[in-house]
């Protein structure tokens, strides 16, 4: 277990270092002068100079890189060109909004997707399976922002059940929760569709294993086979699925935040992109990627709990 833990943590360090590097070079992908890009064509030469100096653009690339890594590791992700605030601070202000949306969405996705996927696998080939898989196919095929618009149209404008805005200016848990329902459902259902499809195939794969046939040959009842024996095996690929879909749902969350005019990392990044506030974009991308990495590490540790082979390396 110690070996497993240290290996996971080493991987974490390498990956964090890697995403910092990618974030750095993402900024280099801007053709021409990043300072000009940020300040626009009407910037004065003096302000361009000042920005270049502040960003370290006058240094050789490798020095810029080292500087960027050094700063990033100490938590300095630069400043927003627009507001002058530290980028990290802006992002941390948006974080609770995104976190609550991501957690609520993931909850919806797992609570709906996993049981439906398992049910579909157990009832393989029956109308139950066909129906669930058809709905899941629809779920992964409609663009999430369109589903969001449709939800607003139906549940806010026509039925008046939930607010069209994904956030309220009023504080208070219940007020905010009420505003969170639609965005979380929209985000969660699209992910649930993926999770259901992938859970089904994970479960089917486990059900096809030799040890399941052995259990059947020994007369173990089907219920025990599905819900005790197979489920624990399928949990590993299902967790992997949840990990993969989490990264993917953060991408979708940007669209959901925009549709519901909800503050958050995604909409902050988008605003920064439109304002050409590239340091802010960089900071946002970095924090989102770090979130994905943290989730994956958590899942890796969970595999160790479930699977004795992983635990013992």
């Amino acid at each position, binding site marked *: 277990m110690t070996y497993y833990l240290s290996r996971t943590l080493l991987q974490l360090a390498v990956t964090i270092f890697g995403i910092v590097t990618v974030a750095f070079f993402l900024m280099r992908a801007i053709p021409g002068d990043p300072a000009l890009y940020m300040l626009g064509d009407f910037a004065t030469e003096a302000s361009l100079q000042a920005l270049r100096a502040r960003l370290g653009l006058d240094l050789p690339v490798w020095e810029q890189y080292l500087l960027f890594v050094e700063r990033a590791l100490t938590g300095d992700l630069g400043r927003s060109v627009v507001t002058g605030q530290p980028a990290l601070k802006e992002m941390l202000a948006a974080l609770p909004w995104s976190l609550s949306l991501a957690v609520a969405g993931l909850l919806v996705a797992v609570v709906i997707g996993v049981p439906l996927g398992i049910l579909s696998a157990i009832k393989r080939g029956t109308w139950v399976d066909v129906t669930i898989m058809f709905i899941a196919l629809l779920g992964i095929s409609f663009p999430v922002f369109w589903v969001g618009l449709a939800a607003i149209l139906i549940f806010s404008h026509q039925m008046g059940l939930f607010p069209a805005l994904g956030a309220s200016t009023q504080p208070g848990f219940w007020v905010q929760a009420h505003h969170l329902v639609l965005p979380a459902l929209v985000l969660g259902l699209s992910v649930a569709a993926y999770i259901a499809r992938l859970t089904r195939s994970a479960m089917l794969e486990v059900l096809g294993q030799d040890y399941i046939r*052995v*259990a059947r*040959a020994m*007369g*173990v009842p089907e219920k*025990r086979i599905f819900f005790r024996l197979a489920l624990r*095996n399928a949990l590993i690929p299902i967790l992997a699925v949840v990990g993969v879909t989490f990264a993917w749902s953060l991408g979708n969350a940007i669209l959901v935040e925009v549709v519901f005019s909800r503050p958050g990392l995604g909409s902050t990044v988008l605003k920064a992109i439109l304002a050409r506030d590239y340091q802010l974009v960089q900071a946002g991308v970095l924090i989102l990627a770090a979130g994905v990495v943290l989730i994956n590490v958590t899942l890796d540790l969970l595999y160790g709990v479930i699977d*004795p082979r992983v635990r013992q390396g």
Partner: protein
Amino acid sequence: MTARNVIPGPFPAAARPREEARPGPRPDPRAGVEPTLDLRGVTTRFPGEDGPITIVDDVSLSVRPGETLAVVGESGSGKTMTFLSAIGLLPPPGKVVSGQVLLDGTDLLTLSTEELRRHRGSGISMVFQDPLTGLNPVFTIGDQIAEVLRAHKPMSRSEARRRAVELLDRVHIPDPTRRVDDFPHQLSGGMRQRVLIAMAIALEPRVLIADEPTTALDVTVQAQVLELLAELRDEAGMAMVLITHDLGLVARHADRVAVMYAGRVVERGPIEAVFDDTAHPYTVSLFESVPHLDSDSAADLRPIEGQPPNPAFLPAGCAFEARCFLGRGREDCLSRRPALGAAGSGGHEAACHHAAELRKGEGRP
């Protein structure tokens, strides 16, 4: 393990070394005893694109208490499917379309799913080929044995665990009280097969079907596992079916043998009769495809030419005709499918138009 080096040559019987271990043809001590498991005319089909495909065709086999029946044939000959049909574990969409599977007189094919489940494990049990994949990797072996026990009898956790330790001891796993909490990956292949055998005999079934139980194991372990199976059979008076393609195993461990080809039994009988007085060309070819360890030259090894026929497109005549040294291109072999018929004494039967010719020693390659 000198025993390994005694895979029988085909014929004549003169130097068949299995007689070192078990001398001479003997009178059948179990004549007249009712079979524990009796398959009668079992026929299994899968739906195919051009109509149903018959995978098991009118197979009749029986095995009596304390006896080992070997079922041999190439892979795809339907030997495993026959017994999966018997215990109701055919992969879908396969179906048994006719026949009876009598377990001490009860026809398993007429039972409900739940009634059949109760018989599996307790009345009829099975050990599969690959011990590496047969155990669930995320449960301890004690858990897995307990799962089988508790599937059939209400039993407390501690009671099930105590029984699991006993069973591990019974299959000669050293230090069972400690091993019971091991996960499968902590055990060697041979140990895992012992665990699977422990699961299979946990409820003292009357029939144990062992489907190539030693193929995935190395030679010394193979012998130990087979000795264990024989020991358990003799102690409990269990009937045993040994599915294999290893004729060496058949010679050393079986009392009777059935040879299957393309879903049908083509020859069956007491082991001595089938080995010494082979009456089907396919059986002859099987013997010849086995290496003789008394000669180093590979020249003696004669693999069976060609492929087994596609079960979806079986010929009208004998299914072995295209590969047969004796009947290839012959009129009757092409046009008529041979039925099982008596070939000698003691219930020795073969399904070949030219069995008599073969037994006289004619037409051999």
